[in-house]
């Protein structure tokens, strides 16, 4: 087994309310890789991310993080290694941006989470990475949608987790902020983070994904790089669409 495998699933079956969501799926995500989860609504993208984040449990198979069975890792330890950013987030909170991002340090804290000098440095560094340092004292509720998404990313960075999971993070963003967000993800990937991200848009997936995991009818229908010759036909099969060969608008990342 290669030690570069950060996430490894073997014959993984996940049920929710006795209904099979994913059945005997197997895949790997390597260190420093952006893996994109693609699939129609209800294909199980969110369920898979939540299972890796230990929010949901799985019923059959094996799920390993850094060659260790996820089921044997306690929640606190897992939260130090895996950062999960949910699809819908409530920003109607009386937290400053700094306080909001500082919550990412909590998995490393004991009963009373007083921030040390090192914590403050990590939080400030995370805010600087996403270009929010100037807004650190502002209420999180008063930020724009793009800024709030960057604050979520900063919280994720502040956890110092090597694995970052994102559930459709760019859904509510305009194209400029989407591109900004993807650029930051690539920066994090280049810094050695392993990223698993659920995305709806096929073009976005092609832009940022080092590999694509296409979920359809409880299975992984495609697992490989986007330039694989079979990818297009699999997309057409799963989404039941016909892809044209027209040149789409292309944006520089």
């Amino acid at each position, binding site marked *: 087994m290669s030690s570069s495998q950060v996430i490894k699933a073997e014959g993984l079956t996940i049920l929710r309310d006795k209904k099979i969501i994913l059945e005997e799926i197997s895949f790997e995500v390597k260190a420093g890789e952006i893996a994109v989860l693609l699939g129609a609504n209800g294909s199980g993208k969110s369920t898979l991310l939540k299972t890796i984040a230990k929010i949901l449990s799985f019923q059959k198979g094996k799920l390993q993080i850094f060659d260790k069975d996820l089921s044997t890792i306690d*929640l606190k330890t897992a939260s130090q290694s895996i950062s*999960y950013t*949910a699809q819908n987030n409530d920003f109607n*909170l*009386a937290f400053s941006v700094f*306080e909001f991002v500082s*919550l990412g340090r*909590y998995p490393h804290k004991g009963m*009373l989470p007083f921030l040390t000098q090192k914590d403050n440095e990590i939080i400030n560094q995370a805010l600087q990475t996403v270009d929010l340092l100037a807004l650190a004292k502002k209420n999180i509720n008063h930020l724009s949608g793009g800024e709030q998404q960057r604050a979520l990313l900063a919280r994720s960075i502040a956890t110092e987790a090597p694995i970052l999971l994102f559930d459709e993070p760019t859904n509510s963003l305009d194209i400029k902020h989407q591109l900004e967000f993807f650029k930051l993800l690539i920066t994090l990937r280049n810094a050695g983070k392993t990223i698993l991200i659920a995305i709806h848009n096929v073009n976005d997936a092609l832009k940022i994904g080092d590999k694509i995991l296409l979920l359809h009818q409880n299975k992984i229908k495609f697992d490989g790089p986007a330039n694989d010759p079979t990818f297009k036909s699999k997309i057409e099969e799963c989404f039941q669409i016909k892809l044209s060969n027209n040149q789409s608008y292309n944006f520089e990342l």
Partner: protein
Amino acid sequence: MNKLTLSIVILILSLLGLFIIHLATGFFSINLLDYISNQTTLQETAILENIRLPRAIMAILVGSALAISGAILQGIFRNPLASSGIIGTDSGAMLGAITAIFLGLTNQTLIASFAFFTATGITVIVYFLSFQFQNKRSDLVVVILTGIAMSALCSAISSILLTISLEDWDMGKRMVLWSFGSLEHTNWTHIKIILPTFIIGCFFCLPHLKNLNLLSLGDETAQSLGVKVGKTHFYIIFISSFLAGIVVSITGMIGFIGLVCPHIARLMFGNNHLILVPLSALMGAIFLLAGDIVVLFLKATYQVDLKIGILTALIGVPFFLSMILKRKFS
């Protein structure tokens, strides 16, 4: 000095000031300086030591306990309208006390014990029933709905007992008076019960304040950041019920403190529960102490016997509305 430190200093000084005013307020005019220099009569010393001092301490403990109970519940429910009423604690205590009076008990400690165990029992039933309804997951909406249903049931049974008792004027009066809430008959025995309970409640509350911050982000995000969500819900609901239950059992229903004080603290100091909960407690103590001074003053000066439970609602409602309006226009 930053805003937070300044606010804490002002609140502590207000509490101390109100504590002294509370000791000096009452039918008998007692000079506190005379007491310090041992120049008070035996009667004045007895009034001060056995009536006023326990009552003032009780006001602080009750106000703090109700405010903490409300603040932590609002934290897990992510709703500023949450208080011990929605998990059945208040109506459970009411049912316990009314049942005890109905059974002919007159001993205050026995009535309080009845009220406390019924309050806790109802909360236990609410939690475990809702746990059954929601397929073994911790869904707080189901807890609220079950709480509302159980509260309605307790209120209905209480009303039946009250209706039956109306023919016995004295019994009916005692039941109604209990429901008003008062610090009137406080003695050192009550303090001996409430103080350790309060300390135990705070001690068990402390490790969960961090989790309350994370839970404000949503249950799933909190779990991904290391919070055992179901366990935290369970602990918070029981600590809240424990604190409110013991207080309501002894003093009767004192509303609005658990709702208003955490809300004001949240508007002033934000959502960080490590700051919010202690400051809510401080505000609860100040609020109840101030309210009880008004009660004592009205009784001593105008012979008006206004119960503290009624007064907290009378002061709390306009204060609460003004805070909401202030937030709307700020």
